[in-house]
């Protein structure tokens, strides 16, 4: 049995932190001295968390009414096995299992955790009053960092939350947005925006090429090329033209010579939807779909986008241009939160 200092105490709630069962009893009350113990350990730089079978909002409300909710980091309140809760907490805090103390009144829960995480110290909650005096909960030093530890972790939690909000809009949320994507052939008046896109979009430009209105217009008027623009709108309004593709076509293959998207819409799946439309069109006409990619040192994202849309390397040119070929299988359907209108005359390709 290891005797490392405990970094985090993971508490059960019902009949551990408080007397009673939240879902069954009209009222629960904190066990004696619980707030003192929580605060004392917190002041020593020991973190607290929760592994409880309860409804999250309900339990958090109850903790708020006790004035204790701020003390718990990454609380795991739900219906998962407690070993899973402990795992998530340890991972989120980035601490070893041998520095975790789990306090629960139920022998079953303690055994379940112990069976999965042998290094976690599992304690019968009837002994919680002894905690402040236990050597494993008495750090040798209490520094300014220890006192601030919880706050620093909480800053991290906020950071991660902001990141997650930016990153992963949930499907239900996306559905409420009523997003509509329009893919159409660029008209002359679209070219200025297209030029701007090529200059502003660094990370999501597949070849790093920039174009002027004039060069784009030249391309547009060549009969074996098309410039496609993607526009996205939702119930708040239009995002404007957020994607550009330059397509060269031959009788046996189409070639994406340039593809770029505004990073504002990256999380909305428009790149994937655009790619699916193009892949389906190519497949229906029995032509290959190729794409150019040039590593600019900043556009790895675009390589990943291509790769995840079923492209793989076919040839590498001396000048660093890579030719990719699409396998045209497993083409994902358009997600139902995004309506797509395609105004492209593929048959003229």
């Amino acid at each position, binding site marked *: 049995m290891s005797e490392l200092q405990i970094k985090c105490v993971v508490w059960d709630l019902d009949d551990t932190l408080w007397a009673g069962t939240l879902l069954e009893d009209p009222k629960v009350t904190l066990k004696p001295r619980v707030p003192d113990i929580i605060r004392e350990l917190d002041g020593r730089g020991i973190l607290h968390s929760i592994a409880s079978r309860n409804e999250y909002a309900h339990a958090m409300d109850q903790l708020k009414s006790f004035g204790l909710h701020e003390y718990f980091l990454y609380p795991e309140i739900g219906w998962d096995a407690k070993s899973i809760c402990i*795992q*998530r907490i340890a991972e989120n805090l980035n601490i070893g299992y041998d520095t975790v103390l789990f306090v629960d009144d139920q022998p079953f829960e303690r055994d379940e955790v112990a069976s999965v995480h042998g290094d976690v110290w599992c304690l019968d909650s009837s002994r919680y009053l002894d905690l402040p005096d236990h050597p494993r909960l008495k750090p040798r030093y209490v520094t300014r960092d220890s006192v601030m530890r919880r706050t620093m972790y909480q800053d991290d939690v906020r950071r991660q939350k902001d990141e997650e909000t930016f*990153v*992963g*809009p*949930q*499907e*239900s949320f*996306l559905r409420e947005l009523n997003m509509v994507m329009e893919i159409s052939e660029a008209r002359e008046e679209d070219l200025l925006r297209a030029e701007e896109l090529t200059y502003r979009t660094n990370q*999501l430009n597949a070849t790093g090429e920039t174009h002027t209105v004039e060069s784009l217009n030249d391309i547009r008027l060549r009969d074996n090329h098309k410039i496609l623009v993607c526009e996205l709108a939702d119930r708040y309004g239009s995002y404007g033209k957020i994607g550009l593709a330059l397509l060269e076509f031959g009788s046996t293959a189409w070639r994406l010579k340039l593809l770029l*998207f505004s990073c504002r819409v*990256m*999380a*909305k*799946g*428009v*790149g*994937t939807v655009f790619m*699916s439309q193009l892949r389906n069109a190519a497949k229906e006409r029995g032509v290959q779909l190729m794409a150019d990619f040039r*590593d600019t040192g900043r556009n*790895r*994202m675009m*390589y*990943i*986008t291509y*790769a*995840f*849309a*079923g492209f*793989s*390397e076919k040839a590498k040119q001396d000048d660093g241009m*890579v030719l990719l070929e699409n*396998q045209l299988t*497993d083409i*994902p*359907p*358009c*997600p139902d939160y995004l309506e797509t209108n395609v105004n492209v005359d593929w048959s003229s390709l």
Partner: protein
Amino acid sequence: MREQIRGFIESNLNIFDSDVQFNDGDNIFRRGFVNSLFAVQLIAYLEQEFSITIANEDMNINNFSSVDKMVEFVELKRDGNG
């Protein structure tokens, strides 16, 4: 590792909003919810979490189409690097 990868997918891919069940062998691309951002995050996650480097040549959709494939791929990369 399997649990970690699965956990990452569940918490970052939009489909798992609505109690959708998915198995380790299921192709995550066929459902149409993988966007570029997820792809980028997934690559970064695998590289950091398992200390591997994913070269462009490795970036084939077949290596990442399911939890099973990812586990297989990471194990292969690790052996190669080790």
